[in-house]
Structures are given as structure tokens and as C-alpha cells.
């Protein structure tokens, strides 16, 4: 029966091979390349390298350079502050929407669900262009309405721009996160609710005692994705940059490393900055996962 085994092996190769090759080329190789770049530098002997260029190992000096650059450190601090506010607001908002949809009677639920999910189909840059118009004085109906009520709204100033960006991100992704939770709510066995109603549980108790604990996996999943997505902030500030002087060319770590690579041609420093950001994103998501699994196993 040797042919069966070799047939199976061939099947594995055929089924998994194509994906794995592309995975290695477009995910693993770039990571290794970025790591390699971040610890090497190019040494030129001659003004345009006509004396030859050589790659030299420079250890962690690019990382030290990145971390001792106050502008880059400020951008890191900015996205961390952004994440600390944005992630809880996003998750609480999305969970609330999912629970409300779940509690509502059948009428209108389809409409509301589509309405909330719709912005997910609007690309981040287009959402930013759109909200950018809604933030611009003279163009924005919001500012016009605000001033009619005597409220002076300012969306693009240095104090408010970060939260104006947060609003764009919430507008885009709250519906997606809600959908993940709704899907999980739908999978709860209806007998549980019947049993709870016979036991005289009120709506609030059903939410806190049954629904929330049972959609925990969905909440954890969306939280991790929100953490990773939030730290990568790039398109929104890039688009709003032309509208707000508060956004600099290194407003977020991703903008900084993009700028380092394509304006300053310093790919090594850009690579070090990218690696630092990826490490922070992984540390936060794994940290969060360990935190919740440890708490989960205790309770």
C-alpha cells in the first residue's frame, strides 16, 4: 500500500503547496528581510557608490536611533493613547449595537444591520475624504448646525484631530465588529433564554448572565483585531493631512516609517520602525490574550 501513502503526500503537496509558497514569499520573507535590513547599513565609498557599496552589520543602532528620535517616540505615544481610548469605545459601542439588535423585534432589524455594516464597504481613504469634508469649516453642515446652536465645533485643530480620526475609524469598523458579535449571539441555544424566562430573569440579567459570557470569544477576537488595526493608523491621517496643519509627516509610526523610506530614502531606519511597531502590536495582542485566558480559566 505504498502507493496510497505517496498519493496522500502528493495531495498534501498539491493542496497546501501553492498557499505555502506564497505565504513564505509575501509574509515570512518580508519579515526576515525587514529584520535583516534593520540591523544592517549600507556603506558607500564614493559619492554615488561608484567606489562600491558594502553592507555592514550595525547591530541595534537603527533601533536606538528610532527610539531616541523624539518625533518617532511621540508618534508611538500618540497611537498608544489613541488605542487606549479607541479600543474600549469601539468594543463597547459594537457590543451595545449587537445586543440592541438582538433584543429588538424582527421588524427593522435587517435594515439596521445593513445600515451599520455599510461603512465597512467604504475604503478608509474614501471614508477619510468624506469625513474630511464634514470636518472642514465652510463646507461642513455639522459645523453650520453647531454654530446655529451657538456651539463652536472644531474638528481639525491640534486638540481634536486625533479624536476626529477616531470617529472615522469607529464609523468604519463598528458595524463589522457588531456583525461578528451578532453571528455569535445567533448561535446561542434558544432553550437557554426560555429557561431564563421561566426562572424569571429580566432582560438585563439575560444580557449580563447569558449573552455577554457566551459572546466572549467574539469580543476577544474583535478586540485583538481592533488593537492591531488601531496601531497601524495610516490612511486616515495621510488624507486629513492636507486639511489640518496639526498632522505632521510623522504623526503616526506608520507615517513616520513611510516618510523615512520614501522621502529620506532611509530604508534601514524605516525597517527598524516597522519592526518596532509590529512588535508592539504583537505584544499588546498577545498580552491581551494571555490576560483574558488567565482570567477565563480562573472563573
Amino acid at each position: 500500500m505504498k502507493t496510497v501513502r505517496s498519493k496522500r503526500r502528493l495531495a498534501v503537496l498539491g493542496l497546501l503547496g501553492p498557499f505555502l509558497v506564497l505565504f513564505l514569499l509575501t509574509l515570512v520573507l518580508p519579515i526576515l528581510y525587514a529584520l535583516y535590513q534593520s540591523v544592517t547599513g549600507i556603506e558607500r565609498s564614493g559619492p554615488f557608490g561608484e567606489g562600491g557599496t558594502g553592507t555592514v552589520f550595525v547591530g541595534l543602532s537603527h533601533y536606538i536611533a528610532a527610539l531616541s528620535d523624539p518625533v518617532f517616540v511621540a508618534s508611538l505615544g500618540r497611537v498608544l493613547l489613541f488605542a487606549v481610548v479607541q479600543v474600549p469605545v469601539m468594543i463597547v459601542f459594537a457590543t451595545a449595537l449587537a445586543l440592541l439588535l438582538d433584543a429588538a423585534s424582527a421588524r427593522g432589524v435587517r435594515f439596521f444591520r445593513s445600515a451599520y455594516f455599510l461603512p465597512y464597504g467604504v475604503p478608509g481613504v474614501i471614508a477619510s475624504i468624506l469625513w474630511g469634508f464634514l470636518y472642514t469649516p465652510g463646507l461642513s453642515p455639522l459645523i453650520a448646525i453647531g454654530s446655529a446652536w451657538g456651539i463652536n465645533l472644531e474638528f481639525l485643530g491640534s486638540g481634536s484631530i486625533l479624536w476626529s480620526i477616531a470617529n472615522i475609524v469607529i464609523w468604519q469598523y463598528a458595524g463589522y465588529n457588531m456583525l461578528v458579535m451578532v453571528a455569535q449571539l445567533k448561535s446561542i441555544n434558544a432553550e437557554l433564554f426560555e429557561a431564563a424566562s421561566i426562572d424569571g430573569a429580566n432582560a438585563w440579567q439575560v444580557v449580563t448572565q447569558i449573552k455577554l459570557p457566551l459572546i466572549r470569544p467574539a469580543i476577544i477576537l474583535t478586540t485583538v483585531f481592533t488593537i492591531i488595526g488601531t496601531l497601524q493608523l495610516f490612511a486616515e491621517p495621510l488624507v486629513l493631512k492636507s486639511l489640518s496643519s496639526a498632522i505632521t509627516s510623522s504623526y503616526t509610526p506608520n507615517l513616520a516609517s513611510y516618510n523615512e523610506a520614501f522621502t529620506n530614502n532611509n530604508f534601514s531606519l524605516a525597517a527598524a520602525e516597522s519592526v518596532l511597531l509590529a512588535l508592539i502590536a504583537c505584544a499588546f495582542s498577545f498580552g491581551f490574550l494571555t490576560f483574558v485566558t488567565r482570567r477565563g480559566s480562573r472563573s
Partner: protein
Amino acid sequence: MTADNARIRTLDSHLMRKSRRAQHGARWRVLVTAALAVAAVYFLFPIYWLIIAATKSTGSLFGSSGFVLDKPQLLTNIANVLTYNDGVYGRWVLNSVVYSGVGATLATFLSITAGYCFAKFTFCGREAWFNVILAGVMIPGTALAIPLFLIMSQVGLVNTFWSVLIPSLVSPFGVYLGRIYATAAVPDSLLEASRLDGASEFRIFFTLVLRLMMPAAVTVFLFQFIGIWNNFFLPLVMLSDQSLYPITLGLVQWQSVADRHPELYQLAVGGALLSVIPIMIAIVSLQRFWKAGLTEGSVKG
């Protein structure tokens, strides 16, 4: 008789409790619906603004309230978007459709085959490979773009169609979904029976497994399609030739020079509306597919 009376009494009290709860429930339902409606206004009013703004002339865009119509000229505006700069907008739409359509189709096929392989075959290093792929979900996409650019430039693919398409073919999340779905939806007994009948693995996959895994495939396809459609960083890094741009990149380019060419404001608004409409239709009409498979994809906490 007494037993019947007792039963009627309990039924009565049950009904009374029920009607009291129904009264309470009606008030509760109004509150819930009101909250849902407020949220809907938040999500929909920017799109409403976009639709209104797309009908305005450049003058009205700045000179009239954003929420009311003012001398609507939607068709003129759309014609302007489509003809500006020799119809470059149409080219961007075509590019976006090709990047997303071809990319998502191939990515779905690769994810489903790989997921099925992980679920139904035992081979050396299976769990290790799977964990490596799962870790790939955690890698921020933007961290990869710059090293990918350098690799692509070394093989001469920068500023080509391939530089955007190839990285879009890999969806670690799709493999994860595919594995979980295959475990649940493809019975081992069916595979064994087909093998005993002498069907080749190739045939089993294409005639049997692919059909069983269709719901997961549709979900992976939709998410990958939207993912590629919305992608901005990768094409921004890779492409310098305008005729290769997807819509996102093209519109940002219009918007970024609009302070010098004010007519581009109106073009950016009209172009944004045109690009959003097909996706909105797809989202609403394909709603039931967005749910399938999402729960299967949750992290077990």
C-alpha cells in the same frame, strides 16, 4: 374538575404576567428601536451627505448647506468624473475590479485548499505550520509593505500589476476559517467511501469538497474582496504609474491636489460616490453570506 380549575387559574395568572410583561416589553421595544434609529442616523448621514454633495456644482458645494439639494446636476458631475483626464477614473475602476476580483478568487481557492488539507490530512509538522500561519493573522499588513516593496524592486516587479496582486493572494485568516469549516462540514466517511470507489484526491476535492465548503468560500471571498478593494498602503508603496492605480489611490491623488485645483473637490466627491455604490449594493444584497462562517472563526477564549 378541581384539577381543571387549578390549571385554568395558573393559566390565568400566567397570562396576566405575560400581558404585564408585554406592556413592559412594548415600552422597552420603543426604547430599543429609538436607540437603533439614532445609531442608524450616525452611520448613514455621511453617505446621505455624499449623495447630496455629488449632485452639486463646485460653487454650490461650498455655498449651500450640505444636507439640502441645490440646483442638482448629478449627471453632469458624473460625466465630468468619467471624462476627466481622458477617462482615467474608468481605468481605476477597472483596476480595482481586477485586483479585487482576481485576487479574492485566487486567495479564496488557496485558502480553501490549504484549510481542507490542514483539516483532513495528517502530515509532518502540520500543527507547527498551522501555528505559523495563524501568527500571520497578527502581523500588521503595513509592516510588510515596505520590505515587500524592496523585494519586488529587486525582482523588477515594482510598479506592475503583479506587485499589488501577488501579496493579495495570501489570506491566513481564510486558511483558519477553511480548516475549521472543513473539520465540521466534510465528513471523513464520505472521503473514505470516495477513495474506496477509486476516486483520485484531485477529483474528490473538485467534485465533493469544494461544494461542501462553498459557504466558507463565499465568506472568505467577500472579506478578501473588500480587503483588497479597501487596501491603500500596498498600492501606494508599489505603484507610481497612474494607469495602474486602484480607485482609492486615484481619489486620494485628486483630493490631495484639490486645494490648487478646486474643480477636483467635486470630482473627488462624485468619484467617491460612484465607487461606494456597487459595494453598498453588494453588502446589502449578500447580507446572509456575511454571517456564515463568522462564528466559526472566533478565537476560543
